[in-house]
């Protein structure tokens, strides 16, 4: 089945990308109980679930067969054999080592486009894959931020039970940040790369047809208006959900609490890092002047000239080292902290949706129980569906949570270790500068005393 389906798929997502979901959206408004989306999340266990989602898509798009590709276990087995040796540095990821990676994406090479209408940046998105639903083993195309935004929105809409990795902030304060500065573009590019890699590494998200479209289609047929409508519908639903949960399992409360505290700590870390950068910048200003004072003084001395110039040289070496350190800090540390702040937001969003799902189930169950007492009808299918939905929500959430925790641990381990490394490096650079000065001056001194001894 999947081989047959593979042929048209290279082109398919271009047109298909919006169809299944726009249809899903249409069904969503008249049937706010959410049964339409309920099935998709059930594929969290890999193969079967994809089928469930596809079945639904098939039904909604009048039986278009293209979506029926399940993330087949056969292909994943094949990939496991093929790519086992390919696990590189990214294999640090706990999940990457247990699940096979067969989809590799990178975002790089930003380019500025200037037209009469607008100025924007595009990034090169390169894909390498052995997955069967991709027509070619490699793709390379250019996407702009809006496209990433579209992808994320689609993912969120089509996989509401999953944690969708965050995108870098969309809006930047005008005047404060130059959207086209090399630094900003570079940072955003890295964040986009991270986002796409996280999606591609996810056992469920990576099989989402919208991702496929994003990675392969020449032209994204975006209909953002519809997506926007979905959002509105959702927020209306959320507003209605002021229902208090009967028994929220303690683990979800703990997750919420964890996220709150973690968020707080991240905020503090971010403030500290920013403050250190500020202090270092000011330190650097003074240090530069400090060095030049020594150099100036050297001008009016004879035998002190050399040591004074030596000190001036050391100070300026230290300035250079400090500059590198600050730059590294602002490029490596801050973006990760930001990403995790946004991540927390996504995570909270998912938790909220789970709570809603539970609330809905409990509400319906309660109603059904009352009705049952009255007229002894069996528990309606509707309620069972709700229960199913809640259960798959819980399962997805737990899996994603574990995954996220593990990623987080790896990320912070790496981040903090490299921060320590950079600081060590900074001190080493300074130390070696001062050491060479001392040995030079002490040699001179020894020579001088020898000379005077000879005299």
């Amino acid at each position, binding site marked *: 089945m999947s081989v047959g389906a593979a042929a048209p798929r290279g082109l398919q997502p271009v047109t298909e990308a919006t169809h299944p979901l726009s249809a899903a959206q249409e069904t969503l408004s008249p049937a706010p109980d959410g049964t339409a989306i309920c099935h998709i999340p059930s594929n969290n266990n890999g193969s079967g679930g994809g089928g469930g989602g596809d079945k639904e898509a098939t039904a909604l798009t009048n039986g278009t067969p293209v979506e029926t590709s399940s993330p087949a276990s056969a292909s994943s087995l094949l990939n496991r054999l093929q790519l086992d040796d390919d696990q590189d540095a990214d294999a640090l990821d706990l999940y990457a080592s247990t699940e096979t990676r067969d989809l590799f994406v990178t975002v790089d090479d930003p380019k500025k486009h200037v037209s009469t209408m607008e100025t924007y940046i595009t990034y090169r998105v390169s894909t390498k894959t052995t997955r069967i639903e991709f027509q070619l083993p490699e793709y390379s195309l250019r996407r702009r931020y809006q496209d990433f935004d579209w992808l994320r929105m689609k993912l969120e809409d089509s996989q509401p039970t999953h944690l969708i990795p965050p995108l870098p902030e969309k809006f930047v304060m005008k005047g404060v940040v130059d959207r086209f500065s090399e630094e900003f573009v570079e940072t955003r590019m890295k964040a986009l790369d991270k986002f796409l890699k996280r999606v591609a590494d996810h056992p469920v998200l990576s099989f989402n047809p919208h991702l496929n479209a994003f990675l392969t289609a020449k032209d994204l047929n975006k209909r953002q208006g519809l997506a926007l409508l979905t959002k509105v519908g959702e927020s209306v639903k959320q507003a209605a959900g002021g229902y208090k949960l009967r028994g929220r399992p303690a683990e979800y409360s703990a997750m919420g609490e*964890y996220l709150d*505290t*973690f968020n707080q*700590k991240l905020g*503090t*870390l971010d403030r*500290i890092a920013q*403050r*250190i950068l500020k*202090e*270092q910048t*000011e*330190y650097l200003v*003074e*240090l530069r*002047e*400090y060095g030049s*004072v*020594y150099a*100036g*003084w050297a001008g*009016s*001395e*004879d*035998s*002190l000239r050399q*040591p*004074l110039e*030596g*000190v001036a040289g*050391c100070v300026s070496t230290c300035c250079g080292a400090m500059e590198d350190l600050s730059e590294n800090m602002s490029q490596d540390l801050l973006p990760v902290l930001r990403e995790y702040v946004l991540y927390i937001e996504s995570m909270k969003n998912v938790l909220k949706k789970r709570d809603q799902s539970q609330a809905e189930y409990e509400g319906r169950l309660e109603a059904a129980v009352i009705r049952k007492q009255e007229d002894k009808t069996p528990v309606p299918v509707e309620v069972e569906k709700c229960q199913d939905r809640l259960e798959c929500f819980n399962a997805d959430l737990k899996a994603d949570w574990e995954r996220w925790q593990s990623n987080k*641990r790896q990320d*912070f*381990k790496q981040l*903090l*270790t490299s*921060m*320590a*490394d950079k*600081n*060590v490096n*900074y*001190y*080493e650079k*300074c*130390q070696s500068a*001062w*050491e060479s*000065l*001392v040995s030079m*001056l*002490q040699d001179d*001194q020894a020579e001088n005393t020898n000379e005077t001894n000879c005299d």
Partner: protein
Amino acid sequence: MVERETALLRKIDINVAESEKRTGKNTVNMQETYTVYLIETRPADAGAEGGLPVGDSPWRRYSEFELLRTFLLVTYPYVVVPPLPEKRAEFVWHRMSADNLDPDFVERRRMGLENFLMRVASHSALSNDKIFYQFLTEEKGWRESVLETGFQDKADSRLKSLSAMFRVKNPDKCFTDLKQYSDELNSAISHLLRVRAKVADRMYGVYKVHGNYGRVFSEWSAIEKEMGDGLQSAGHHMDTHSASVDDILEEEEHYADQLKEYLFYTDALRSVCRKHELMQYELEMAVMDLANKKQQREELTSGAVRVFSLKGMSSKLFGQESPEQRESRLAALELSIETSEEGVLDKNSECRDFMRMSWEEVKRFKEQKDRELREALISYAIMQISMCKKGIQVWSNAKECFNKM
């Protein structure tokens, strides 16, 4: 620092051993708190040929040190008199107290005063001064004996020298160069100290902000399972890092004090220059005076009045003076010329002596400065190295903790 056989430091050890806070009434009967310093002297070689009799261990105030220095400055005009430590903490960075009674400040001053006494005691001329010796060894009556020397009469030279500065016709090239150099040194060191204080401020900030990591890591560790321990202990290392800056900057303060001493030395250099100018000025005045008198004599003998003068007018009005009168005036003039000539000779040799002695002093000073500042720079560099090592240590420890997460 010991340079001559004659230097006092060969014979005795000098210590400023202690400081003590005292309260008393000052001259205008106001309550004031001040610090006194205990000066201890003892023979350098215990039991060796008797040496000098060792007296009391007097307590002295900073103002008495000042008086001693002023006395030396006036009495030995050609000497580059070692400076005292600063009267008030200057070039402070914000964490350092500018309070004169602050224990750290008092301790640094104690060391500075000791250094001053050692420098004076190792100087060939200054160390043999009686007043200096009394200062070291006699608790009572020192102030009175200083004032008895009448040095204050000679000490009024400040204003005079200021006017001399603008009037000297043939300034000595060596001294103008020296003056220029001391100005340059002064501005270089004071600039350096100013910037160093700012650098210290900023460095303090950088280190202390890192201390926040310590807190947040330990708070964060409370909600983590596998990462908890690593974070917690990394936090401790960040605390250590932030605390280490206190020691680093305290040590650096010593370097600043060394620089400050040389900053104040520039004043001593200028003072020598000023005294030379004054002397030069007096010499030039004497020469001029002599030239004037000689011209008068010439006029008197030739009878010709070349320039219009009151005397010429009066002689026209009241008739010629008698030959006797003229004779006696001429004789008086001769006598005065003679003394003037002697004066000029004296001044000339005085000036030459001053030049010779002060130049030797300056040379000695320059050698001392080059040697000591070079050493100070080396030890500064070594200090930086140890700071870097501390930093490397702390961050390597932290890295190990992060790695375990």
